[in-house]
């Protein structure tokens, strides 16, 4: 047997899981409940305001982390969950899960870069 290279993906999984644990609930609350219910003032997520945040270096970095870390967490966990549900085509599942995560990472990087 040989030492596995899983630490690479596992570190992303663990960091993403931690990130998701801390920030995802409040973000869902904001975009999914506070905004539609009017709890959040309309100008809070106004275009100019959000754009201003996304135009700063630190803003870009934070937004990127918020999007891409939980994606890798979800992708890795989904791969394992597929196995837990009896799907044994791991080689295929792996490409789908990590492929989606990589796509989301690249797209969000490009979107942020172009802002």
């Amino acid at each position, binding site marked *: *047997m*040989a*030492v*596995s*290279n*899983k*630490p*690479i993906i*596992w*570190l992303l999984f663990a960091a993403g899981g931690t990130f998701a644990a801390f920030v995802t609930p409040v973000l869902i609350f904001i975009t999914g409940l506070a905004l539609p219910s009017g709890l959040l003032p309309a100008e809070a997520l106004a275009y100019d305001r959000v754009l201003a945040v996304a135009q700063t270096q630190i803003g870009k970095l934070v937004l990127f982390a918020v999007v891409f870390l939980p994606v890798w967490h979800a992708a890795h966990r989904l791969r*394992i969950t597929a*196995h*837990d549900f009896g799907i044994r085509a791991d080689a295929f599942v792996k490409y789908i899960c990590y492929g989606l995560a990589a796509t989301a990472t690249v797209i969000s990087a490009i979107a942020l870069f172009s802002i």
Partner: protein
Amino acid sequence: MSNRIVELEILRYNPETDEEPKFQTFSVPCAEDWVVLDAINYIKDELDRTLSYRWSCHMAVCGSCGMMINGEPMLSCKSFLRDLPDRIRVEPLTNFPIERDLVVVMDDFMDKLDSVKPFLIPREEKTVDEGEFLQTPAQLSKFKQYTLCINCTLCYAACPQYAHNEGFVGPAALALAHRYNLDSRDVGRSARADVVASNAGIWECSFVGACSEVCPHGVDPAAAIQQTKIASSVDYFRDMLIPGRRS
């Protein structure tokens, strides 16, 4: 002797005559302070001498009497009848092949236990005359809980990843590897890594946590495995950044 009658449904399998295992029910008059093992011993002594099962110490030390009791992996000598209903289903530990009746085949576990080198690998050997390797209480407390493992394999019976991934080294063996890795007198961590940090080692674990819940001695294999994942990841990146550190 109280008058309580307990119905024991025992999964029987005779490799010489049976195609597959089937349940057989025994009515056992039992005393207030009996454990499931006492009821099984009663069956063996009074009702059916052909019943096969393992036990030795009757005090949760030898680790040989593990069984599924109403679907839960437990030591039958530590499962009091007063905590159980009047109908009790007893099966051999899941995730192991059945040798006969309640006796399972342990070979796979034994091989895996052996593969993690669960013994002290000191920096240099010492003869008895040279004295002992010293250790402070603080150093001992780092791994003491993991020394309590009695190899009863209840954790293997509880672990779905062991059930569904043939090569998985499994909870108890990985916890014991961690126990020696944490020992201040031991330098075997990299020697164990080939198995422990392989795909069939810690990385097959998805942290279900059932192993720790069923352990009769409060050992926490799930914790040991997560800690090993972190330590192995640190090793991995350090080895990558500092080439030649590990050949």
